[in-house]
């Protein structure tokens, strides 16, 4: 990279181009309806495929349909955390407010996917393993991921000064990244009741194509939904910050409709 100064400069220029809040509002405003509509279409297609077209498993019967929710939710739980951690690193290093807003907007979405992964896994484990829950390495490390999300959200909102909360949260998100390889390789490193990887593994997937396709369609649907939710929540945070600045620094509004609203109502984003 050191001998590639022009390209490096170009990449940073691109990043700062997209990181401009006004430009972000413009581009995300165009992307938002497309992401929302496409996620609805892909998720509807994925549901039909998962619940009607996919065959029952020869051992697990119809219970295998839980997989089409459980596995994509688990992928989202991990990749959204990676997103939060990278955005937190950018926020810590470059102090760019949009990176912090992105991390804080994404964390509740990741927590939601982790919750879905845990709940559907429990519903699948009861008929297949005979237990709602076991303390094996995979399940425990995903539970830790869920608590990392909750801890991040709580820490960000635990400070009166939003910038201090943001920095503390970013640090926690970075430290927590050590959990991601533990989750991914837990099924290889320890004897787990949870089965090892059957899609993202060396040597290719061991899952039947008739089940792999609806799995990937659901994963695409979840990703599009994540994109829609992320942009929506980032726009909300930017709107709220702008409104707070307007209230605090006294730009007169027409009609005085806001006069009944105390300054205290202008809370930091996502509190």
């Amino acid at each position, binding site marked *: 990279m050191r001998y590639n100064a022009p390209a490096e400069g170009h990449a940073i220029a691109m990043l700062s181009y997209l990181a401009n809040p006004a430009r972000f509002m413009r581009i995300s405003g165009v992307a938002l309806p497309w992401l929302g509509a496409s996620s609805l279409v892909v998720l509807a297609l994925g549901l039909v495929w998962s619940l009607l077209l996919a065959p029952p*498993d020869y051992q697990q*019967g119809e219970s295998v349909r839980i997989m089409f929710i459980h596995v994509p939710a688990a992928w989202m739980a991990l990749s959204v955390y990676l997103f939060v951690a990278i955005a937190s690193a950018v926020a810590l290093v470059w102090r760019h407010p949009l990176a912090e807003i992105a991390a804080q907007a994404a964390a509740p*979405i990741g927590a939601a996917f982790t919750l879905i992964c845990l709940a559907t896994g429990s519903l699948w484990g009861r008929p297949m393993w005979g237990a709602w829950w076991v303390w094996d390495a995979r399940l425990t490390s995903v539970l830790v991921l869920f608590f990392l999300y909750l801890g991040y959200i709580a820490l960000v909102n635990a400070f009166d000064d939003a910038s201090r909360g943001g920095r503390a949260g970013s640090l926690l998100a970075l430290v927590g990244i050590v959990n991601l390889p533990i989750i991914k390789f837990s099924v290889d490193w320890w004897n787990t009741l949870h089965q090892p990887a059957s899609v993202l593994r060396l040597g290719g997937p061991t*899952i039947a194509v008739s089940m792999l396709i609806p799995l990937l369609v659901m994963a695409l649907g979840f990703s599009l939904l994540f994109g829609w939710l992320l942009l929506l929540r980032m726009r909300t945070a930017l709107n709220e910050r702008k409104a707070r600045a307007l209230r605090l620094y006294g*730009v007169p509004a027409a009609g005085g409709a806001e006069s009944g609203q105390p300054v205290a109502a202008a809370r930091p984003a996502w509190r």
Partner: protein
Amino acid sequence: MGNRLPPPGRLGAETMTGGPAAYFAMGGYAAFVWPAYGIAAAVLGGLAIYSWRRHSASVDALARLQPPAGNRE
């Protein structure tokens, strides 16, 4: 978890052959399959509705604060 190919004749929309009641019974796993889909729909739907409402509120609050001629991004 579906590690092998399903036996021939079990592909496609064969799951509906027993009629709607048999379909919703999910081969005896109805109490596990439907709650799994229900929880996913409830959690994601709830987050989407909450995020959408909060977004609408933020747009409205900004519109009230800004003069009519202002930028209403």
